[in-house]
C-alpha cells in the first residue's frame, strides 16, 4: 500500500449545489463520493445528526424507561417521551399520546388489523384497498378479510397510475369496515389525494369504516399534518423511521384518540398493563397500551433527530426538490427509445421514477448500473398486484431524496444508455 492509495483524495462532487442537503451531512455518502444512491424509497441514508443523537443517548441516558426509580431511568423515560413529542409535532399531531411507536409501517398495519380488524370486521363486511398498496397493507388486510369472512375489494387505477376515484367510490358502502390506501405509491410515486379519499370513505361508509393511510412514502417527502387529515377522515396513519433518515427498527402509528382508545391491545407484556390480577388485567393508557415490552428508546431518539433535521431543512422543500429531479428523469428517460415510464406526471408524484427498458430486464439493468456505482431497485417493489396490472413482472425504480442531485439523475440516464448498448437494443 502506498501513501498515494491511502490518501482519500475525495473526488470533488462539483454538483452538491444541486442537492437540497449537502452530502457532507451523510457519512455514508461523504465516504463514497462516486456513489449514486437512487434507492431512497427503500431506505434513506442517515444524516450525521441522527447517528450523533443515538450515540449520545446510549452514552449518556441509556436505561430501561418507565421502570427504575433512579435518575438514569428517568432520563431514558424523558428521552423517550421527548422523542414521541418531537415526532408527533413533526407529523402535525397535537396529542402526542396518540402516537404509538412501532417497528415500522408493516408492524403498524399488523397492529391495526390485529386489533381493530379482529374486533370489528366480520362476515358480510367489506375491506377495501387499492391496487397500488404495498404488500405491508395489501397482504395484511387481505388476510384479515379472509380470516374474518369479509369481502376483499381492490380499487383499480387509472392508466397514468392514480387511484380511479370513481371505482374507489363505487366500492364504498355501509358494509365497508376498512378502507386502506397509501399516501404515496412506493412503486409509482403517485401522491394520492388523502383528504379526498378519506372523506369519501368516511361519508360512503356512514362513518363505520376504519380509514387507514400507509404513509411510509409520505412522511419522508412532506409535512403531513395528521390532525388535518384526521379531520378529513383518516383514522390511522403509519410510517417507517428509516425512510425519513432515522434508524431501521422504529416507526409510528398515528391515530385519532377515540379510535385508539376503542382498540383492544395487540401484544401483551410489560409496560402495557395497568393492573394485573390472577384472572384479569387492565390496560395502561395510550400510547403504552400498544407498546408491550421494553421500548426501542435509542431508535426513537434517532427518529426524533431525523425529523428535527428534516424540519430544519424544510420538509415541504423536499417534495419540490424531488419533483424537479423526477421531471428531469422523466424527460431524459422518456427521450430514449424503448423506454416505458409508469405513473403520473412529475407534478403528481414524489421522487420515484419507475420504468422498463425494452430488451433489458430490470435485474440486468440494476447490475449494469451497479457496476457504474448507481444503486436502483429492480423488482416488484412489494407491489405484485400493481405489477400484474402493469403487465410486467418487475420494473426498475429510481428514487430520490434531499441529497439527490441532477447529476445523479444524469448518471442514471447514462447508465440506461450503456445498458442498451451492451444489450444491443434501443438503436
Amino acid at each position, binding site marked *: 500500500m502506498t501513501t498515494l*492509495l491511502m490518501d482519500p483524495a475525495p473526488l470533488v462532487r462539483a454538483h452538491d449545489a444541486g442537492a437540497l442537503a449537502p452530502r457532507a451531512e451523510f457519512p455514508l455518502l461523504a465516504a463514497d463520493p*462516486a456513489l449514486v444512491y437512487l434507492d431512497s424509497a427503500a431506505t434513506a441514508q442517515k444524516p450525521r445528526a441522527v447517528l450523533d443523537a443515538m450515540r449520545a443517548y446510549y452514552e449518556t441516558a441509556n436505561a430501561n424507561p418507565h421502570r427504575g426509580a433512579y435518575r438514569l431511568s428517568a432520563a431514558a423515560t424523558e428521552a423517550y417521551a421527548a422523542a414521541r413529542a418531537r415526532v408527533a409535532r413533526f407529523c402535525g399531531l397535537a396529542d402526542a399520546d396518540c402516537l404509538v411507536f412501532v417497528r415500522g409501517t408493516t408492524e403498524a398495519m399488523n397492529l391495526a388489523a390485529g386489533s381493530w380488524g379482529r374486533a370489528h370486521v366480520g362476515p358480510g363486511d367489506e375491506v377495501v384497498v387499492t391496487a397500488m398498496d404495498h404488500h405491508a397493507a395489501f397482504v395484511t388486510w387481505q388476510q384479515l378479510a379472509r380470516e374474518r369472512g369479509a369481502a376483499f375489494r381492490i380499487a383499480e387505477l387509472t392508466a397514468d397510475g392514480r387511484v380511479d376515484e370513481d371505482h374507489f367510490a363505487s366500492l364504498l358502502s355501509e358494509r365497508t369496515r376498512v378502507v386502506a390506501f397509501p399516501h404515496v405509491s412506493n412503486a409509482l410515486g403517485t401522491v394520492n389525494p388523502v383528504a379526498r379519499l378519506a372523506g369519501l370513505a368516511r361519508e360512503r361508509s356512514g362513518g363505520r369504516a376504519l380509514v387507514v393511510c400507509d404513509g411510509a412514502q409520505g412522511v419522508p417527502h412532506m409535512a403531513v399534518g395528521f390532525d388535518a387529515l384526521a379531520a378529513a377522515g383518516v383514522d390511522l396513519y403509519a410510517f417507517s423511521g428509516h425512510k425519513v433518515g432515522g434508524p431501521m427498527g422504529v416507526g409510528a402509528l398515528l391515530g385519532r384518540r377515540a379510535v385508539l382508545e376503542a382498540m383492544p391491545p395487540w401484544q401483551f407484556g410489560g409496560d402495557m398493563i395497568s393492573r394485573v390480577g390472577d384472572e384479569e388485567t387492565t390496560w395502561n393508557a395510550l400510547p403504552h397500551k400498544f407498546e408491550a415490552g421494553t421500548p426501542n428508546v435509542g431508535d426513537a431518539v434517532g427518529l426524533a433527530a431525523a425529523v428535527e433535521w428534516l424540519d430544519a431543512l424544510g420538509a415541504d422543500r423536499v417534495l419540490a426538490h424531488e419533483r424537479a429531479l423526477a421531471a428531469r428523469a422523466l424527460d431524459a428517460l422518456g427521450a430514449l427509445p424503448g423506454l416505458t415510464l409508469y405513473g403520473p406526471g412529475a407534478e403528481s408524484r414524489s421522487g420515484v421514477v419507475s420504468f422498463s427498458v425494452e430488451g433489458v430486464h430490470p*435485474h440486468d439493468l440494476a*447490475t449494469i448500473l451497479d457496476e457504474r456505482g448507481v444503486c436502483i431497485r429492480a423488482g416488484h417493489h412489494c407491489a405484485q398486484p400493481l405489477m400484474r396490472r402493469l403487465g410486467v413482472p418487475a420494473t426498475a425504480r429510481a428514487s430520490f431524496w434531499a441529497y439527490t442531485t441532477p447529476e445523479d439523475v444524469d448518471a442514471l440516464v447514462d447508465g440506461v444508455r450503456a445498458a442498451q448498448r*451492451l444489450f444491443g437494443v434501443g438503436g
Partner: protein
Amino acid sequence: MAETDVRGAAAPAAPNAPGGAAGSDARLAAIYQDIILDHYRRPRGKGALDAPDLAAERRNPLCGDEISLQLALDGDVVHEARFTGQGCSISQASASMLTQAVRGKTRAEAEALVRRFVALAHGDAEAAADPAMKEMRALQGVARFPARIRCATLAWGALDDALKGEG
C-alpha cells in the same frame, strides 16, 4: 487508473473507485458475454412438452423470475427438456443452456450436472475449468455478482426438484 494498476488484476477494484470504469466494463463484459445474450434473445428449448414425465417450477420471489421446467424420459435417460417462464438474461440463458446440457443424460448424471453447475455459479474453479461444462462456463462470471447467483441457478433448482420428483 493508478489504483487498479497498483492493486493488480487479481484484486477486484472497489465498485465505486474513481477511475474504476474500465474494470467495471471488463466485469460486465465477463458476465454479459455474447453467448449469454444469444441464449437470452434466442432461447433453446423454450416451450412446453405435451406429456412430460417430470416437471417442476421455481420462482425467485425477490425479482419475480420464474422457470417452469419439463422433462421427457426414455427409460432412465432425459431425452427432451423444455422450459417456460420469464426473467432476466442470466436466468433465461441459464435455462436455455440447461435444456441442451441435460439431454441424453441419465437421471444420476443430470443430478451430478446440477451440483456441478451450482458449484460453477458459486465460483468453484474446478467446475469453471471443466470442459464438460461447455458454454455454461460463460455463466461463471455471476460468482462475482452475489445478487445474481440465484438468477443463474434458478432453472437448475427446478431441474433438481424435477429429478427428485418434488415438482
